[in-house]
């Protein structure tokens, strides 16, 4: 991942959020407080604006800046959570693709995603099965790691686009798998058993973030 790809990724997320804002809000309306679409929209509009202003040194910079902007513009649960995820990803990529350093390959990006999850769980303390963004993130990360190691599908090791595609599919599966779950974290947990039968908005936006990664890396190839 180089600067251009990092930028394009954030822009692609922004576009996807813009297109699916209402769906995210309606999902949040069923088991939350009906602001997830607006929150994501506000955050990624701010993030793209912030990126347009500065000249980042590398993809790490782009993503750290994105994370910081999310933290300072979103509010809600998703703001600090996604904010720290992007900051952790960006920090792990620090140096890569900057100056004469080579861009981050799939393995390095897998480590970055892994640092993102650590940060997400450190803050939110959610595990798989709690019906949160973690339910989409964890399978996406695993699929990405596997593909990056060349273990999946017999594909060639380190194919970034293939890894991103596998991650997007896994994230979407994880997202759909939240529907039958009873929430144990976030607002949906207040509904008790009534949270069952609804897809989690945060898992949905996580899937959208991984799908955007797959899209932009596919376009690069």
């Amino acid at each position: 991942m180089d600067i251009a790809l990092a930028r394009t990724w954030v822009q692609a997320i922004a576009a996807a959020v813009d297109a699916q804002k209402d769906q995210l809000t309606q999902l949040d309306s069923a088991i939350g407080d009906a602001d997830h679409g607006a929150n994501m929209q506000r955050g990624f509009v701010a993030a793209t604006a912030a990126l347009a202003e500065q000249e980042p040194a590398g993809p790490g910079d782009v993503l750290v800046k994105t994370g910081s902007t999310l933290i300072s513009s979103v509010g809600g649960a998703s703001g600090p959570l996604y904010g720290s995820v992007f900051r952790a990803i960006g920090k792990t990529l620090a140096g890569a693709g900057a100056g004469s350093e080579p861009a981050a390959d799939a393995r390095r990006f897998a480590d970055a995603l892994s640092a993102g999850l650590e940060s997400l769980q450190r803050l939110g303390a959610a595990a798989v099965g709690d019906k949160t963004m973690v339910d989409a993130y964890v399978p996406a990360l695993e699929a990405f790691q596997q593909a990056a190691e060349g273990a999946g599908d017999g594909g060639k090791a380190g194919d970034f686009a293939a890894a991103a595609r596998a991650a997007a599919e896994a994230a979407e599966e994880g997202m759909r798998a939240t529907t039958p779950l009873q929430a144990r974290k976030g607002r949906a947990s207040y509904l008790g058993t009534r949270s069952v039968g609804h897809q989690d908005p945060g898992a949905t936006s996580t899937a959208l973030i991984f799908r955007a990664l797959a899209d932009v890396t596919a376009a690069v190839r």
Partner: protein
Amino acid sequence: MKKLINSPETLLEDALAGMAAAHPGLRVNAGARVITRSSGKSPGKVAVISGGGSGHEPLHGGFVGLGMLDAACPGEVFTSPVPDQVLAAARAADTGAGVLLVVKNYTGDVLNFQVAAELAEDEGITVETVLVNDDVAVEDSTHTAGRRGTGATLFVEKIAGALAEQGADLATVAKTAREVNSASRSFAVALTSCTTPAAGRPGFELPEDEIEVGVGIHGEPGRRRERIRPAKEIVADALDAILTDQPLSADDETIVLVNGLGGTPLLELYVVYNEVATALADRGIRIARRLVGNYVTSLDMAGVSLTLCRADAAMLALWDAPVDTPALHWGG
């Protein structure tokens, strides 16, 4: 969706401008989205600060003023403020004596205030945080997000605010704030959902003869759906939920809040208060102080929340202490 707004995007900005114009006692920093007292800081005083998503008015901005909050930081509708806002509020209110952050227990609020607290500490501002979690409709377990903060927020802000006004130090103010929270329990029912400007339609649809029982203040559905019943029965069940969680004895004195969620006429709130007063009298529980009105609302939701605080003499004295804010005003 019909609302008296210009656009969902400008709602908060416009409302803050309106608050600033309406209340000479408030100073509103529109850029930072921070509301402080226009009287400025009182040297050496601990600052009590609260904030959270908008849509619960008069909470929190309407409680800024003598004897209550020093600053409030309102987020977007039902969205906690961002850390920058909380930090700006802390900077604006800190006199060097430290700040108490009154935070309603929601993941978003907790995380954003936590980040802000770290930033503030980095700047040398001493911070204590009290988490309000009074809603007995939510099961409290170590595996979940825990109980929601609702009506008790008003009690914490009023009593901690009075203590800070009297010159107590941060540790003391924080300790009392936590005691007030521990002594308080709430339960709410909704007759309708509410409509956030961003969503444009109600969070849930209720048939003409059903209510949601055990709701919060963000338009989310409650724990269960029931047929509407006479106020007396609805109150009895709510009090049962509260008193099962925190039994009170005949010696206990309470502060009671009968709080409208935004769309319920005051006339009905008085009917509810009458049932609360009767039911508590039947159980031998004394109501030492009470408030009936719209204080911690959920936009246009029709419904009511009950909050009981078991109050000792010190708390009652602090409750009675002068307060001069847009939404609460008594004494002195």
